[in-house]
């Protein structure tokens, strides 16, 4: 049995751990609110752009002359998996869930005889994926010096992806990130980003759009908008990821705080028992001594 002093020390150390997890939980809650607001304000642009893409797509048939970003390279040998992770830990299984989803997809593609490459965003996905696929990391995008992922990062990532794509480094790109459902639930998601999946044609506005004029031609507008659409999607994914990270962090820290509380209770009971046992022993000794006289 641990001595009273040792027990006291452990109780204190668990108490200070609990203080840290509680603080981190509150920080995550505040940041979550901010991240959600950011995701909210990004919605109008994404919605409008998707609308425009939809109405354009309904007028154009994908052919060989279509932009490569829409029509694809004509083969699907090399797959690039873009894995978006966070830079910091203390967020439960958030990062490992994304990595797991990417790993499953990689194995599946390799089983079909495809080549798989990785493009990693954020620090936390590096170690596990590098361990498993040491030769297949095409690039690691560093976000450690950025506080909140913004449109500039999305733009840089998208530009690099398009450059790699145009060099013929890969044929298909998938994006892995965590979709924010609620603070309790984040869903690792796999989304094809290149070639751009044809946006859903909007049928309802077809009548109103019939007279719409385009300048330049529809094809040219579509070609100009495709990279922007890609950037917007990446931006959206980064925002979802940021919100998910804070949500996961909040939940994980809430659990940790509760566990610390349970542990403190258990240790306190143990401490009191040992103390009482010590007192009882002392009393028995005194009484025995008195009786002997």
């Amino acid at each position, binding site marked *: 049995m641990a001595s009273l002093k040792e027990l006291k020390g452990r109780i204190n150390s668990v108490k200070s751990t609990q203080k840290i997890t509680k603080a981190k939980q509150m920080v995550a809650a505040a940041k979550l609110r901010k991240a959600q607001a950011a995701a909210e304000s990004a919605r109008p642009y994404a919605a409008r752009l998707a609308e425009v893409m939809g109405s354009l797509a309904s007028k154009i048939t994908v052919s060989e002359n279509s932009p490569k970003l829409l029509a694809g390279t004509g083969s699907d040998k090399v797959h690039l998996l873009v894995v978006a992770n966070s830079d910091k830990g203390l967020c439960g299984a958030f990062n490992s869930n994304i990595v797991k989803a990417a790993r499953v997809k990689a194995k599946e593609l390799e089983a079909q005889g495809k080549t798989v490459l990785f493009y990693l965003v954020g620090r936390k996905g590096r170690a596990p994926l590098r361990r498993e696929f040491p030769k297949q990391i095409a690039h690691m995008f560093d976000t450690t010096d950025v506080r909140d992922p913004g449109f500039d990062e999305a733009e840089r990532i998208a530009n690099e992806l398009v450059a790699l794509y145009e060099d013929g480094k890969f044929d298909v790109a998938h994006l892995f990130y965590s979709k924010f459902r609620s603070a309790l639930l984040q869903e690792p998601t796999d989304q094809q980003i290149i070639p751009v999946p044809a946006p859903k044609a909007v049928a309802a506005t077809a009548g109103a759009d019939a007279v719409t004029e*385009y300048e*330049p031609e529809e094809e040219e*507008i579509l070609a100009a908008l495709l990279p922007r659409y890609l950037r917007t999607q990446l931006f959206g994914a980064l925002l979802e990821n940021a919100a998910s990270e804070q949500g996961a962090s909040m939940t994980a820290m809430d659990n940790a705080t509760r566990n610390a509380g349970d542990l403190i209770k258990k240790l306190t009971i143990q401490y009191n028992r040992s103390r009482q046992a010590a007192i009882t022993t002392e009393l028995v000794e005194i009484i025995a001594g008195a009786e002997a006289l």
Partner: protein
Amino acid sequence: MALHFELVTPAKLVRSEDVHMVVVPGTEGEFGVLEGHAPFMSTIADGALKVYRTEGAAPEEIRITGGFAEVGDKGLTVLAEHVG
């Protein structure tokens, strides 16, 4: 007699207001949009939007890059990647 004008960036809705006219530097030439303009879509060259709040007022210039303009029943919507 007012045109509803919206300027949207990926990060947020920058403007949503009623104005008199907006002159947009389209890739194939500048064009002005007044109320009741025919449905129209155009890419925008990097440059300045000129927003006329009232008829004859001095225009307010907003520099944008990576823009796209859409004119519909709801007015003029400009999607821009960067503003300022």
